[in-house]
């Protein structure tokens, strides 16, 4: 193939691949991504700025259920069709795999992508300065920032399939990662915090600063949580990580058997009646904002648990075909060069039946507030067990009465989910691979602490 003009490379690769795939039971999907990101890091070495522009193509070839995938940059894109075809004989047929087709009423767009321009690094520097200021004033110098990175990117994506889908869309994302060190009584403790939002302006800097202070100072200054039964209030950012770990249970049809076992074939609820689990591309406060998924399927709000009862799954095109439902738009690509897989956008507990977290706290006469995670939640869905190590505060008559350096929440996951008696109206989101997970404040009465 001769070198083609930049803007027409997508069409040339698609035509070349499609022409050789005219046999029955065949199809293909070509994906292009153009991205620009700016990354600003401020640490002891000074200020580092990275400006990255990227462009990549990914081709999936489908033949009678077999799938082969290849990805390459523009200089190698012309070889994609040959490379994918060479891989295909080694693949086994998989049920449901086919090129994505347009949904009823879906528009087709065949415009070439323009490369986005990287944002100004000055905005990122401002975010870091704000974080540093809040940390210094709120911790009275006990917590210092050793390094912070702000990353902001925009990507423009395009997809075309031989089944008639042609779509283009834009997405943006920004993250703030910071390493903080707390000093108290001659001891030091460091921690890393991460916040994500669709744009740099939406990163919740103040909230992250207070989270960072709690995360490094509570383990140094509090007492371990005493044994006994107390009311438990879980902070949205702790609950968000737990909810994020539940998301894969709803990915396609892979864990249907396990969910049936959990709910004894639908005879028991998945969670208490105040819990509805939803995935949405545009949840307020969500870490991402997406209009289409990685296969170009329009993203829609999907309820997987409605008032405690299992009602659905998050699907891509293949899983939807196996479940005989329309796809929910839950395919993600972690990078342009990664094969699409099922993932969540903003997977969260629907806060609509929630009440103010202040009202939740007011009702606690003796309890524990789990404020900050100390390590990743340990969850075993197959054994229905969980263990979360966090720190927080003891609560007496609705007010914090002391610091707790270690709170271990452990037990049966189904018991925890079914014991939630109230939820707040304050959803907050944390990052999970490919998206975010969120929850409001959760209230569980008389939880047993070991």
């Amino acid at each position, binding site marked *: 193939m001769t070198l083609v003009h930049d803007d027409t490379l997508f069409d040339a690769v698609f035509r070349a691949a499609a022409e050789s795939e005219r046999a029955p039971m065949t199809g293909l999907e070509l994906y292009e991504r153009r991205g620009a990101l700016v990354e600003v*890091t401020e*640490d*002891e*070495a*000074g*200020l*580092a*700025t*990275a*400006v*990255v*522009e*990227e*462009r*990549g193509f990914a081709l999936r070839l489908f033949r009678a259920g077999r*799938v*082969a*995938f*290849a*990805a*390459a*940059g*523009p*200089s*190698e894109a012309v*070889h994609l069709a040959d*490379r*994918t075809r*060479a*891989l*295909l004989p*080694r*693949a*086994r047929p*998989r049920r449901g795999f086919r090129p994505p087709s347009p949904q009823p009423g879906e528009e087709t767009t065949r415009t070439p992508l323009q490369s986005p321009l990287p944002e100004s690094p000055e905005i990122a520097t401002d975010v870091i300065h704000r974080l540093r200021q809040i940390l210094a004033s709120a911790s009275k110098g006990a917590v210092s920032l*050793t*390094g912070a*990175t702000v990353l902001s990117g925009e990507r423009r994506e395009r997809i075309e399939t031989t089944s008639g889908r042609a779509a283009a869309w834009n997405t943006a994302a920004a993250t703030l*990662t910071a390493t903080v*060190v707390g000093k108290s009584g001659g*001891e*030091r*403790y*460091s*921690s890393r915090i991460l916040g994500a939002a669709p744009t740099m302006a939406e990163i919740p800097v103040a909230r992250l600063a207070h989270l960072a202070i709690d995360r490094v100072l509570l383990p140094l200054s509090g007492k371990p949580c005493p044994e006994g039964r107390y009311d438990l209030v879980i902070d949205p950012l702790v609950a968000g990580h737990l909810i994020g770990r539940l998301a894969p249970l709803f990915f396609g049809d892979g864990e249907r058997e396990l969910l049936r076992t959990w709910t004894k074939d639908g005879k028991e609820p998945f969670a208490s009646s105040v819990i509805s689990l939803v995935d949405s591309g545009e949840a307020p406060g969500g870490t991402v904002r997406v209009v289409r998924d990685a296969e170009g399927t329009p993203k829609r709000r999907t309820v997987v648990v409605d008032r405690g009862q299992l009602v659905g799954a998050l699907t891509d095109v293949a899983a939807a075909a196996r479940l005989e439902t329309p796809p929910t738009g839950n395919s993600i690509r972690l990078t342009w*060069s990664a*094969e699409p897989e099922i993932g969540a956008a903003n997977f969260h507990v629907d806060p609509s039946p929630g009440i103010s977290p202040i009202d939740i706290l007011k009702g606690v006469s003796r309890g524990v507030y789990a404020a900050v995670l100390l*390590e990743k939640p*340990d*969850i*075993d869905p*197959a*054994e229905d*067990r*969980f*263990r979360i190590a966090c720190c927080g505060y003891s609560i007496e008559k609705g007010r914090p009465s002391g610091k707790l350096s270690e709170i271990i929440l452990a037990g049966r996951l189904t018991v925890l989910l079914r014991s939630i008696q109230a939820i707040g109206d304050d959803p907050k989101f944390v990052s999970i691979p490919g998206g975010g997970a969120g929850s409001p404040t959760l209230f569980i009465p008389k939880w047993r602490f070991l």
Partner: protein
Amino acid sequence: MKLVSGLFRRGETGEAFRQRKTRVTWSGSEAGLTGVARLEESGTAIRIRSREHSLLVAREGITHEVFRLAVREAGRRNGSAPFFKATHNSNPPRVVLGPGPDQDIDDIGLQLSGLFARISREPRHPNFKLSVSWVIDRRAVITPRRAVDCGIPARLEASATLRWASRQREFSYHSAAPLGRALDELEESLLSVLSEEREVDPPEGPVSAVLTPEAAAVFWHEVVGHCLECEGREVSSVLGRVQGAAVAAQGLDVIAHPSRLDLPGGYLFDDEGQPAQEVALLRDGCVAGALSGGQCTVRESNGHGRTSDYRRPPHSRMSNLVVSGGTASPAELLSHLGDGLLVSSVSFGAADPESGRFAMLIEEGRLVRKGKAGARLKRFSLTGYALEALHNLDGALGNDLRPATSLSICQKGGDAVPTGAASPSILIHGLTARRSLR
């Protein structure tokens, strides 16, 4: 080189970096090989550093045109040197990214089909998800003085989740050995994981443990390696703060050895163009050095500036750690242990260099009673503090020094780089064991 050197103003340094990566991944399950994916990626980065700031401009591709555009963009953003012009006449240096090892991709696929079939036919009928990648990562650096090819590290990476008889086990394998040998080792390691032995709960609380070379590799990586990576103006860690102090038994050497190309973290030049150098981290039990790259402002680079890919700035990172061997046989170490644990496989490790706290998730271990390895243990975690653990390390080191294959990609600050280690078995007292859910 003129194009690169012309970019820098007084007090500035930097380099151009080119990368070409090929990754072919085969994935499958007990149903056989189900998917194949191939990635070809290349990119160019221009990096400029001064004492106070650094700039990286990265673009996809390694053509001359991409190089010129990246240089021009870097010059624009940095405020170019007065006489600098990235014109068509200033040709980029001709660094040819060396060809990858000549492997027939289809041939590897065939061999893997056989591997998948043999695991499926195992009498224990495991359910598994296995992904195997053949990675060829070619890198070149152009500095104002020279243009170097960093080496041709090719490696085999594998990760799997295996379920059988109500057990689940995470598995990883990583090797820079020649492909045929690596595939044989991978199969052997995978099959050895499947066991029908009954598993018992580990004891909780303070324990002593013998770590086999596989497990000890993770220990050294977390406890010594991460604690001696130079960040900016200081090595801000429990070991960095006590340079020169005796922290472990005499006779113990821990050496960073990037030029060991038989280990997965090997290279000839680092990602900033510095020759790979041996660095003693612990010499005779004393803290003797630290790993530094170009962004470290208090030490000269010792060839440990590494990056996960061209889009990311390099940082001081570990390559391969090689630990001095001893004379004790594994049986002697167990006998010396008396009662405790034998740890042979670790699936995850983490460390906080500031406090020195570290944790390892143990996939495979056994209870040891009166110096004899007994019942197999359920998954558990071992935690401790770096200085205490090194202090409590028994002076007797194993005579079974060998490369680890389960130590693979090290993630730090979002950057993943391949690392390796070779260690003998070791005996440590005073670790804390805790049961894990899976």
